[in-house]
């Protein structure tokens, strides 16, 4: 009896410590995004002396300079236009990530089916070439990628980011989809084949509809990776026309003319899309990956 009680105690204690570790920095972001600058900078710290405000959010969306409860004399200096780029940067990230997701679903499922079902020469070497190509660290490819993109005249375009992110995500997508497609009972496809369907028709008519949830989950994973990518975003983009969210947030955060309150409000806005996606991605992709791959 005593022992069961002890285990329960350890369980809850562990859960609480874990929750604090995960939430502490996020709580600070959300809290400081609604605090006036004077409260954040106060010493000894008194965060709630001037109450809460939505001025940071309002500035990002409307350009209305925050006044709040702070003396306004020095405030003007602390405002930089850069933080107003955040909504546009989110849009850029969404555009690029959606396109990459589309490429992954189309090109990925097309390539995964032969690897899962068909016999052809050099299948294994090609499969390993594709999947292993991603094990080389990204920074090792930075210079060549930059020069390729430059030569193609695609610096500062969405196209360059879409191409690079597709290459970075496709190997994983193909690996996962190959496993999924292999998991589909072959008898179902047999019927289509007897009706005279070639591999392509079988894929489109039978396999894709069956694997749709996993396909979307895998696509969403590529979406998330693209939305989060930083190194190549930093390298390829030069203006707000294409700058992605992680890049803008990083430069904003190093900009001395942006207050922490504004930075944290931008973070709070920027991470919403990925927070919304994490549960579907986990349900459809990670679970299937584990169930299908390792047992």
């Amino acid at each position, binding site marked *: 009896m005593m022992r069961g009680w002890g285990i329960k105690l350890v369980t809850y204690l562990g859960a609480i410590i874990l929750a604090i570790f995960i*939430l502490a920095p996020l709580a600070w972001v959300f809290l400081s995004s609604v605090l006036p600058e004077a409260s954040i900078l106060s010493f000894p710290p008194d965060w709630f002396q001037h109450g809460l405000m939505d001025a940071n959010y309002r500035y990002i969306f409307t350009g209305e300079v925050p006044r709040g409860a702070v003396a306004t004399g020095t405030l003007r200096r602390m405002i930089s236009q850069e933080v107003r780029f955040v909504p546009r940067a989110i849009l850029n990230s969404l555009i690029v990530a959606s396109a990459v997701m589309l490429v992954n679903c189309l090109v990925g499922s097309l390539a995964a089916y032969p690897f899962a079902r068909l016999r052809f020469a050099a299948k294994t070497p090609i499969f390993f070439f594709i999947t292993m190509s991603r094990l080389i660290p990204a920074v090792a490819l930075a210079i060549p990628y930059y020069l390729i993109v430059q030569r193609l005249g695609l610096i500062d375009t969405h196209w360059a980011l879409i191409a690079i992110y597709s290459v970075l995500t496709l190997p994983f997508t193909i690996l996962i989809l190959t496993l999924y497609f292999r998991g589909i009972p072959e008898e179902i496809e047999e019927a289509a084949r007897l009706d005279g369907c070639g591999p392509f028709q079988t894929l489109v008519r039978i396999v894709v509809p069956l694997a749709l949830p996993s396909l979307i989950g895998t696509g969403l994973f590529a979406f998330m990776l693209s939305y989060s990518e930083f190194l190549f975003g930093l390298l390829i983009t030069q203006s707000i026309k294409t700058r992605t969210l992680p890049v803008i947030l990083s430069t904003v955060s190093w900009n001395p003319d942006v207050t922490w309150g504004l930075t944290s409000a931008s973070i709070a806005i920027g991470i919403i899309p990925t927070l919304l996606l994490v549960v579907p991605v986990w349900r459809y992709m990670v679970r299937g990956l584990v169930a299908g791959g390792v047992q």
Partner: protein
Amino acid sequence: MTVRGRIRRITGSITFSAYWMIAPAVLLVAAFTLYPYIYALWSSIRVVSPLLPPAFAGLKNYKAVITSIYFLRAVRNTLIFTAAAVPITVVLGLLTASLLNRRFFGDVALKALVLLPWAIPIAISGVIWRGFFNSGWGALNALLYMAGIIPKYIGWLTTPSLAKLVVITVQVWTQFPFATVLILAAMQAINEELYEAAAIDGAGLLQRFLYVTLPGIRAMLAIVVIFETLMGLTAFDLTYALTGGGPGTATTFISYFTWAESFKMLNFGNGAALAVILAAVSLLMILAILQFIPRGALVGGEER
């Protein structure tokens, strides 16, 4: 037409289908893999810089890089960082997965919570934690001060030794959710009857973990260790956003050093030499770790 002839015709058209179906992916990956690698190899033995005329450099770039004190420092920083972050990440992932494998009040909420750090782009996590650890107004200093634990604010990110610890902590924060998810999934795939049998045999909690859980998740643990080692050795976004490699060079890792050498110093030749070394070391690490993985355990296994 003979049966054999018909089979051959069908097989031929299927082979053709296979090739055109994989063609877009193969071409895309090859164009962005082979050419860049060859280019990196080529520029690593040349003087390539917008500031200098191009010339042949032989192994000078490699020599310049390897003998640079900054390079050695970056290598040491990276190795210490990886050696600390990977075990902590894996152990925390294991503990969290064991926790989430139990039924308790709020377990579903905690599961969703654990996914949060994974969902946030690493570069943004770096910014978030920089605000948390800020020495002037960060939440940690404020909370510790209010609780009376510290008499004055601590320079978490301005003291080299503390900054190293902070970077490891944040790396663990960003990485342990994925480790947890994978390990948990492997745990849930273990046959319940094995636990019952072990319990009948009188196995305690620890023994059940050692003899049932651990063998069941061994393959997954290996995958997690490889993945996390790669993430550690190539960490870039985190230090860029969290410390900028500082204070001084305290948190400058190989990736950041390579990036700075290429795009801050504009010495593409040295940068390429570094990139080649980095790629080679990563490959060796992968091969070495692969030796420890049970055969057929890897997801990428071609034959069933």
